[in-house]
C-alpha cells in the first residue's frame, strides 16, 4: 500500500507549480541578524552550542497560576476590587485597640468572600492544569542516541530532536519537514485548529532531506538550521538549512506547526525547531485574562463614591470629636468630668486632641464600614452562581444531537450578557456546520434538485409562505442512507434515470467533468471497502461525491491517470473508464477557475473546466452559449438561496493545438525567472477559451440550524454582528448572504489589496514600496467608503463592509484605525475574511476600546481562542471537535442559535438580577428590543444608581429622626419605663429590616414563591433572631438580652412606630414608580401591562423601531 501511495502522488509535481516561488532572497539575507538568530542543531540536541543556547523545552502550560504563585497572584486579583482593599486595611487595623468591635466580626466576612472566590479560581485553574498534563504527556516517537525511534512524552522533546509523526497525529512542536512516506517528500496537513480552514495543506520537504526514510539513514544525518526567532506569524517562516557544506533555503512550505494534524500521509520525519512556548500556536495564544464585567467595574466606582462618603463622614465626625475632646480639659477644669478626661488613654486625650481625632477617624472608618457593601459582593456572587446554574439547566439550550447543554464556565460575566452591543463571530463551525452539500445543479438549461436550503426555508418562513413538504431533505430519508456532502434529491437523474432525459449526453459530460476535474485523492477504507475522498477544499469533495452518487464513481488516481467506474448503457453494466491526465491548471483566487486536460480512451483530448461565473461566461465560445440565459437565471436563484455556484464547461482540443501549447507551457513551468507565474497564467488563459457550457452546480455551505432566524432576532435587538473568518473573500460573502447578514438591498464596501498595482509591486519584492502603496490604497478605500456612507445617509441604505486580512493588517495600524472603525461602526454588518487569530483578537480589542461597548466573541476552533479571550464575553461552540475554544470561553453552547436565548432571555434576566426575572422567556424572545434596556444600561445607569442612593439617604433620615423623635424622653410603656439605647436600637433596626424588604418588594416585578419566601422570610427571621438571641444567657446576648420580649413587644408604641416609619420610607419610591409607570413607562413595564390586559401589540415593534431609528440618526448627527 505505501508503495502504491508514493507512486500515485507523483502527479503532484504536475500542478503544484505554484508552490515553488523564488521570492525569498530578500528576507533570507537577514538570517543571522537580529530577529533571525535561532540556530538548531538537527539530530544533535546535546551539541555543546545547543546546550549553551538552552532553548525552551516542549512543556506547555496554559494555567493562570502555578502552585508557587497561586496565593500571591490570586490575592492580587482579589484586591483589584477596591472594596476588598478597604476591608483588608480595616482587618489590619481591627487588631489594634482602635477597633470599635471585635476583629473577628470584621475579618470573617472578608475571609469568606476572598476565600470563596479564590477557591473558585483555584478549581478553574486546576481544570486547565489537568488538560495541560494530558497534552504534555502525549506520546511521540523520537530518534534517540541508540539510533532507534523510541516513544517519549511530548514535554520531553528538545529543539533539534528528530521525531516521527504518524497519520492523524498532531505535531508535538513546530517541525521542519525532512521527509515523508511519500517519495517526493510531500505531506498533507490539516490546520483547522490554527486558522479554521478545513482544506488540507500541502507541505514539501527539501529534496536534500527527502531521502531520509529509515533509522539507519538518520545515523549519519546532521544539519544546522538557522532561522528566525519565535514569533506568532502563522503564514511566514524564514530560515535555511546547512547540510554537507551547502545551504538550502527553508520557507513556510517546510514548516509543520504544532496544533495541526498530519493527514493522508502515513508518517513524516521532522526536526523540532520551536518547542513549547516558542511554537507559533502558543505564541498566538494570549494569556487567559481575568475578565471583569462592566457592572463589576461600575460597582468599583460606586464603592469609590461610598468610600469618599465614608471618609467625609468620618472626617467631619472626628473633627467635632477633636473639638469636643479638647474642650473637656482646659485650665485645669474638667468639662465632661464623667469621662475622666484627666486620666485617660490616647484615644480620648484632651491634651492631644488632634492625635485622638486622627485615631477616632480610623475607628470611624471601621465603624461606618457598613456603607461599603461587602455583603453585596457576597450576595452578587451567590446570585451569579445561581444564574449560572440556570443557564446550565436551561433545556432550551440543550442540543440533542451532541448531547450537550449550555455551560456557563465563569459566573463573572452573567449580567454582561444583557448588554452585548457587538457580536464577533467565527464562520466555520460556528455559523456553518463545516460541511458542503451538493444540493442543486443546472444542466443544459434545466434545473435539477428539489432540496430546500436552510436559507430558502427561513426566507419562506419570513414571507409567511407555507413550507413545502420537507420530507425530501430530512435526514434518514426512508430507504436511502444519507451521504455526507450530498443532499441532492431529484428522481429525474438519480438512480440512473438521467439516461432518459432529453439532454442525457450533456448530463453525462457534466458529471464526468465533476468526476475528473479536481485534485481529490480517494482513500479506500481497507475494512469496509468504502471510498473516502480527501480534498483540499470541501467543495471539491462535494462534487466528487455527487458524481459518484449519480453513477460516475471516481476511485483511483495515479501519476498520470484518473479512473472512473460508470454504467455503460449499451452493455448495461459498470465499466472502468481511464483518462490520461496531462495537465492540471490549478485554482487560484485571481484565476477563479481550474481545469484539467485529459485524454480519454478514445484518444480524444479534452479540457475540462470549472470556475466562478464572473470569469467563465466570457470564456464561452459562440456555439457554446446555447443554455447561457437559463443557466444565468438559475445561478441567480441559487445565489439568492445562499448557495455557492460553479460553472461547468469543457472543450475538445485539437491534437496540433495541444502539442504547440504543451511545449510552451512546459517551458514556462520550468523557467525560474520572476515572470514564471505570469507566463504560466497567460498560457493557461490561452487554452481556457472557447468553452462549451454544460451547466452549473450549487453547493450549500451548510448553515447550522436556526442561524438566519437567530441573526434576525439579534439584529432586531440592535446587536451588531461582525464575522471574522479565515476564509476566502468569496466564501465569506456567500455566507454573509446565506445567513442574511448581507442582503440584496445592502450596498457593499469592499476593502482589499488584490489590485493589479499591488500585485505588480509584490512581484518586484520591495517591501517598503509594497507597504507604502498598500497603506495609501487602504486609506483611499476607507475614505471612499466613508463618503459613500455620508452621501447615502438620507436614503436609508444599509452598508456591508467586507475587508480581507492583509488590508485589515494595515487598517489596524495606529494612524488609520480610527477612520477604519468609524467606517466599520457605520456599517450594518462587517465581514473580515482571511484574518489570522491574532488579527481577530486585535480587531476585538480595538473595537472594545473604540466603542467602549460590550463585545461578545463566539467561535469553535483553536484559532478563535485569542479572540474569545480578548472579548468581554467569549462564547465557545461545544459542538463537534476541539475543546480549545470551549476551554478558553466564558460560556459554551452547542449551537449558534442558542445565542439568542442566552442573550435575549438569560442576559436580560441576569442583568435585572434583583428581580430574578421581570417578563417571561417567551416575551423576551418575542420583543427582542427589550434587550436595549441592557445595552443602553438604563437599569444600572448613573441616574438610577444615584436615585437609589438618594432613596437610601432619605430612608435613613426618616428612620432615624422619626424613631428618635417619637420615642426618646417619655415613657414608652404604661409602666413608665423609658427608652435606653438597646430598645432604641432594636426599634430602628426593625424599621430598617422592614423598609429594606418592602422597598425590595415594591421594586420586584415578578413574584414567585421564592421572592415571597425570601422577602417575608427575612422579616420573620429578624423577629425570630431577636427572640432566640434574647433568650440566651446574658453573657452571650449581652445588650440584646430579652430586649424584644420584655421591652419592645409589649409596647404599642414600638409597633406603631414600625408601621409609620416603614410606610413613610416607602412613599417616595412608590409615588415615583407610580408616576413613572403612568407617564414614562419603560419597555418591560409596557410589555407587562399589555400582557396583563391581554392586548396583542403587533404594532409596537414597528413604531418603536421607527423611533429608534430616529434616535440613532440624532445620535450620529450629534457625534
Amino acid at each position, binding site marked *: 500500500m505505501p508503495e502504491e501511495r508514493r507512486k500515485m502522488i507523483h502527479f503532484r509535481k504536475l500542478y503544484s507549480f505554484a508552490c515553488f516561488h523564488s521570492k525569498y532572497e530578500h528576507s533570507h539575507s537577514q538570517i543571522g541578524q537580529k530577529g533571525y538568530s535561532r540556530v538548531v542543531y538537527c539530530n544533535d540536541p546535546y551539541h555543546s552550542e545547543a546546550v549553551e543556547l538552552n532553548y525552551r523545552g516542549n512543556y506547555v502550560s496554559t494555567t493562570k497560576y502555578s502552585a508557587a504563585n497561586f496565593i500571591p497572584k490570586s490575592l492580587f486579583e482579589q484586591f483589584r476590587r477596591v472594596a476588598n482593599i478597604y476591608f483588608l486595611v480595616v482587618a489590619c487595623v481591627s487588631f489594634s485597640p482602635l477597633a*470599635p468591635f471585635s476583629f473577628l466580626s470584621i475579618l470573617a466576612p472578608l475571609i469568606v468572600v476572598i476565600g470563596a472566590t479564590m477557591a473558585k479560581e483555584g478549581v478553574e485553574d486546576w481544570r486547565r492544569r489537568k488538560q495541560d498534563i494530558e497534552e504534555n504527556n502525549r506520546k511521540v516517537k523520537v530518534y534517540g542516541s541508540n539510533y532507534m525511534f523510541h516513544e517519549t512524552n511530548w514535554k520531553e522533546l528538545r529543539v533539534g530532536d528528530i521525531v516521527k509523526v504518524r497519520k492523524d497525529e498532531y505535531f508535538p512542536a513546530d517541525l521542519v519537514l525532512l521527509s515523508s512516506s511519500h517519495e517526493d517528500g510531500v505531506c498533507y496537513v490539516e490546520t483547522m485548529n490554527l486558522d479554521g480552514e478545513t482544506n488540507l495543506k500541502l507541505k514539501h520537504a527539501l529534496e536534500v532531506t527527502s531521502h531520509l526514510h529509515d533509522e539507519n539513514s538518520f545515523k549519519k544525518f546532521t544539519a544546522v538550521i538557522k532561522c528566525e526567532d519565535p514569533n506568532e506569524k502563522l503564514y511566514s517562516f524564514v530560515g535555511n538549512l546547512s547540510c554537507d557544506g551547502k545551504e538550502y533555503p527553508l520557507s513556510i512550505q517546510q514548516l509543520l506547526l504544532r496544533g495541526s494534524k498530519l493527514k493522508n500521509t502515513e508518517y513524516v520525519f521532522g526536526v523540532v525547531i520551536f518547542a513549547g512556548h516558542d511554537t507559533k500556536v502558543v505564541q498566538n495564544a494570549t494569556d487567559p485574562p481575568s475578565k471583569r464585567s462592566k457592572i463589576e467595574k461600575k460597582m468599583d466606582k460606586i464603592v469609590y463614591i461610598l468610600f469618599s462618603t465614608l471618609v467625609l463622614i468620618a472626617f467631619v465626625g472626628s473633627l467635632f470629636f477633636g473639638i469636643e475632646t479638647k474642650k473637656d480639659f482646659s485650665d485645669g477644669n*474638667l468639662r*465632661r*468630668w*464623667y*469621662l475622666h478626661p484627666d486620666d*485617660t*488613654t490616647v484615644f480620648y486625650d484632651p491634651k492631644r486632641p488632634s492625635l485622638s481625632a486622627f485615631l477616632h477617624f480610623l475607628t470611624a472608618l471601621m465603624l461606618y464600614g457598613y456603607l461599603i457593601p461587602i455583603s453585596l459582593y457576597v450576595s452578587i456572587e451567590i446570585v451569579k452562581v445561581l444564574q449560572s446554574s440556570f443557564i446550565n*439547566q436551561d*433545556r432550551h439550550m*440543550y442540543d440533542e444531537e451532541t*448531547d*450537550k*447543554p449550555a455551560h456557563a464556565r465563569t459566573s463573572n460575566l452573567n449580567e454582561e450578557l444583557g448588554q452585548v452591543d457587538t457580536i464577533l463571530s467565527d464562520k466555520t463551525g460556528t455559523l456553518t456546520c463545516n460541511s458542503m452539500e451538493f444540493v442543486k445543479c443546472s444542466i443544459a438549461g434545466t434545473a435539477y434538485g428539489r432540496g430546500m436550503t436552510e436559507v430558502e426555508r427561513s426566507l419562506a418562513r419570513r414571507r409567511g409562505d407555507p413550507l413545502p413538504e420537507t420530507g425530501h431533505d430530512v435526514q434518514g430519508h426512508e430507504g436511502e442512507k444519507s451521504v455526507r456532502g450530498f443532499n441532492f434529491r431529484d428522481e429525474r437523474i438519480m438512480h440512473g434515470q438521467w439516461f432518459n432525459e432529453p439532454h442525457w449526453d450533456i448530463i453525462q459530460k457534466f458529471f464526468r467533468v465533476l468526476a475528473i476535474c479536481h485534485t481529490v485523492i480517494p482513500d479506500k477504507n481497507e475494512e469496509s471497502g468504502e471510498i473516502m475522498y480527501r480534498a483540499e477544499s470541501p467543495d471539491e469533495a462535494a462534487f466528487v461525491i455527487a458524481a459518484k452518487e449519480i453513477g460516475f464513481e471516481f476511485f483511483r488516481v495515479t501519476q498520470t491517470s484518473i479512473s472512473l467506474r460508470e454504467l455503460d448503457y449499451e452493455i448495461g453494466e459498470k465499466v472502468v473508464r481511464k483518462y490520461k491526465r496531462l495537465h492540471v491548471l490549478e485554482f487560484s483566487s485571481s484565476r477563479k477557475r481550474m481545469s484539467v486536460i485529459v485524454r480519454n480512451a478514445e484518444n480524444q483530448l479534452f479540457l475540462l473546466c470549472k470556475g466562478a461565473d464572473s470569469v467563465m461566461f466570457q470564456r464561452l465560445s459562440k456555439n457554446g452559449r446555447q443554455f447561457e440565459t437559463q443557466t444565468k437565471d438559475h445561478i441567480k436563484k441559487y445565489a439568492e438561496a445562499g448557495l455557492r455556484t460553479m460553472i461547468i464547461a469543457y472543450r475538445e482540443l485539437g491534437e496540433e493545438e495541444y502539442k504547440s501549447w504543451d511545449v510552451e507551457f512546459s517551458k514556462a513551468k520550468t523557467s525560474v525567472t520572476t515572470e514564471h507565474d505570469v507566463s504560466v497564467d497567460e498560457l493557461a488563459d490561452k487554452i481556457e477559451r472557447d468553452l462549451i457550457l454544460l451547466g452549473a452546480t450549487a453547493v450549500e455551505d451548510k448553515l447550522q440550524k436556526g442561524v438566519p432566524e437567530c441573526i434576525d432576532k439579534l439584529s432586531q435587538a440592535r446587536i451588531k454582528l461582525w464575522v471574522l473568518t479565515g476564509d476566502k473573500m468569496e466564501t465569506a460573502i456567500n455566507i454573509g448572504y446565506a445567513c442574511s447578514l448581507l442582503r440584496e438591498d445592502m450596498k457593499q464596501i469592499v476593502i482589499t489589496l488584490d489590485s493589479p498595482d499591488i500585485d505588480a509591486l509584490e512581484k518586484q519584492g520591495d517591501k517598503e514600496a509594497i507597504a507604502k502603496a498598500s497603506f495609501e490604497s487602504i486609506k483611499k478605500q476607507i475614505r471612499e467608503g466613508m463618503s459613500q456612507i455620508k452621501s447615502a445617509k438620507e436614503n436609508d441604505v444599509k452598508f456591508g463592509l467586507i475587508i480581507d486580512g492583509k488590508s485589515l493588517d494595515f487598517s489596524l495600524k495606529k494612524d488609520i484605525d480610527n477612520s477604519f472603525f468609524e467606517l466599520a461602526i457605520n456599517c450594518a454588518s462587517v465581514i473580515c475574511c482571511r484574518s489570522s487569530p491574532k488579527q481577530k483578537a486585535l480587531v476585538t480589542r480595538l473595537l472594545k476600546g473604540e466603542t467602549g461597548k460590550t463585545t461578545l466573541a463566539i467561535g469553535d476552533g483553536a484559532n478563535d481562542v485569542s479572540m474569545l479571550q480578548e472579548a468581554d464575553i467569549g462564547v465557545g461552540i461545544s459542538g463537534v471537535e476541539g475543546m480549545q475554544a470551549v476551554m478558553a470561553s466564558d460560556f459554551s453552547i452547542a449551537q449558534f442559535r442558542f445565542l439568542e436565548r442566552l442573550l435575549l432571555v438569560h442576559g436580560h*434576566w441576569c442583568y435585572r438580577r434583583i428581580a*430574578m426575572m*421581570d417578563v*417571561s422567556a417567551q416575551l423576551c424572545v418575542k420583543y427582542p428590543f427589550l434587550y436595549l434596556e441592557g445595552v443602553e444600561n438604563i437599569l444600572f445607569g448613573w441616574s438610577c444608581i444615584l436615585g437609589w442612593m438618594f432613596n437610601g439617604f432619605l430612608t435613613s433620615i426618616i428612620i432615624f429622626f*422619626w424613631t*428618635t*423623635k*417619637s420615642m426618646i*424622653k*417619655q*415613657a414608652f*410603656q*404604661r409602666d413608665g419605663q*423609658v*427608652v*435606653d*439605647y438597646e430598645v*432604641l436600637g432594636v426599634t430602628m433596626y426593625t424599621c430598617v429590616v422592614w423598609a429594606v424588604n418592602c422597598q425590595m418588594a*415594591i421594586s*420586584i416585578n415578578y*413574584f*414567585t414563591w421564592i421572592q415571597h419566601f425570601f422577602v417575608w422570610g427575612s422579616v420573620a427571621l429578624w423577629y425570630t433572631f431577636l427572640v432566640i438571641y434574647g433568650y440566651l*444567657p*446574658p453573657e452571650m446576648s*449581652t445588650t440584646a438580652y*430579652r430586649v424584644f420580649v420584655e*421591652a419592645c413587644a409589649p*409596647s*404599642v408604641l414600638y409597633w*406603631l*412606630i414600625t408601621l*409609620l416609619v416603614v*410606610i413613610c420610607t416607602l412613599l417616595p419610591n412608590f*409615588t415615583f414608580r407610580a408616576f413613572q409607570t*403612568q407617564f*414614562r*413607562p419603560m419597555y418591560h413595564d409596557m410589555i407587562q*401591562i399589555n400582557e*396583563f390586559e391581554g392586548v396583542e*401589540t403587533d404594532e409596537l415593534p414597528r*413604531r*418603536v423601531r421607527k*423611533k429608534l431609528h*430616529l*434616535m440613532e440618526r440624532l*445620535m450620529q448627527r450629534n457625534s
Partner: protein
Amino acid sequence: MMSSNTASSSAAVAGSADSAAPRRNSKKPKYSRFTQQELPACKPILTPRWVISAFLLVSVVFIPIGVVSLFASRDVVEIVDRYDNDCIPDNTTDKVNYIQTPGDKSCNRNITVPKRMKQPIFVYYQLDNFYQNHRRYVKSRSDAQLRDNSSASDTSSCKPEDMYNGKIIVPCGLIAWSLFNDTYSFSRNSSQLNVNKKDISWKSDREHKFGSDVYPLNFQANGTVIGGASLNSSIPLSQQEDLIVWMRTAALPTFRKLYGKIEVDLEPNDVISVTLQNNYNTYSFNGKKKLVLSTTSWLGGKNDFLGIAYLTVGGLCFFLALVFTLVYLVKPRRLGDPSYLSWNRNPGGR
C-alpha cells in the same frame, strides 16, 4: 391588581418534548419549574386603580391611628421642673466650685398640679447634654463583675475606675462611678408623699444582670476624685435599683431616668413641695437638670409627635390619591399606549 400566570405554555412544550425516549446518561437538564424559571408568578402592576387604592388604604388606616394616638398623648399629665439654675444660691459666681464643695445643698421647689393625675405617677430626672452614649463611657463597665461575685476581679474594661490603691472597685467603671446623686422628697400639704423606689428597673436586669451576691466594694473610696453617689455596701447590687437604672445607658444626650413612683392620685391645684439635694455636677458641661412627674397612657408618656406624624402621612396619602384620581380622570389613557414610552416622548433626549 395582580395577574397570575401559571405554568407558561413553553413548559408544556418542553414537557411534550420529553416524551421522546430519553437517551441513556443524557446530559439533558432535568425539568423542574425552578430550574427552567417557569415558576407560577404574580406580577404586580402599578395600574392607576391599584395606586389610588393603595394611597387610600394608607390614609384610611393612618388617620384614625393618628387621632387615637394624639388623644392618648393629650390624656397624659406631665410636669417638668428645671431646677439646676434655681437651686444655686444667687450670689454664687463659680457654680462648678459650689457643686464640688461638700456641704448641704438642699433646695425647695413648689410644683402646682395642673390637672388631675391618677396614680401611679412616675418621677423622673432628666439630664441634658450628658453623653451617656460616649464610646469611652459606654464601654467602661464590667458586666461579669456586676453579675457574679466570682468575677469581681474582671475590671480590665473599667480603667481608670478599676482599682483604688490596688484594691478592686465594685461596681467598677465610669458609669457606676458617675452615678446620679440628687435626691428628691415630696410632700403635699406638709404630709409626706411616699416615693416607691422598688421595681423601677427592668426585671431582667435585677434578676439576671446584677447579682444578688455582689456587694459594693471600695466604691467612691477615693476622696479626692469624687464621682457621683455612693452605695450602701451592705445591700447587694441586685437591689440597688438606682444604680441598675443608671447603668442602662441612654441613647442620646438628653434622657430621662425613672426615680420612683408616687402611688396616690394628685388633684388639680395641689401644690407639691419638693425638697431636693442638688449634688450632681452638670454645671461643668452646661447640662440642665429637670424633675419630671408624669402619668402614662396605653401609649406611654406624653408625646404628640407620633399622632401628628400619623395624621400628616395619612393626609398626604389622601392628597396623592386625589391627585392620581384627577390625573386619571382628566387625562385617561391606556397604559399600554406606546406613545408614552419614555424614549418616544423624548426622542434622543439623553
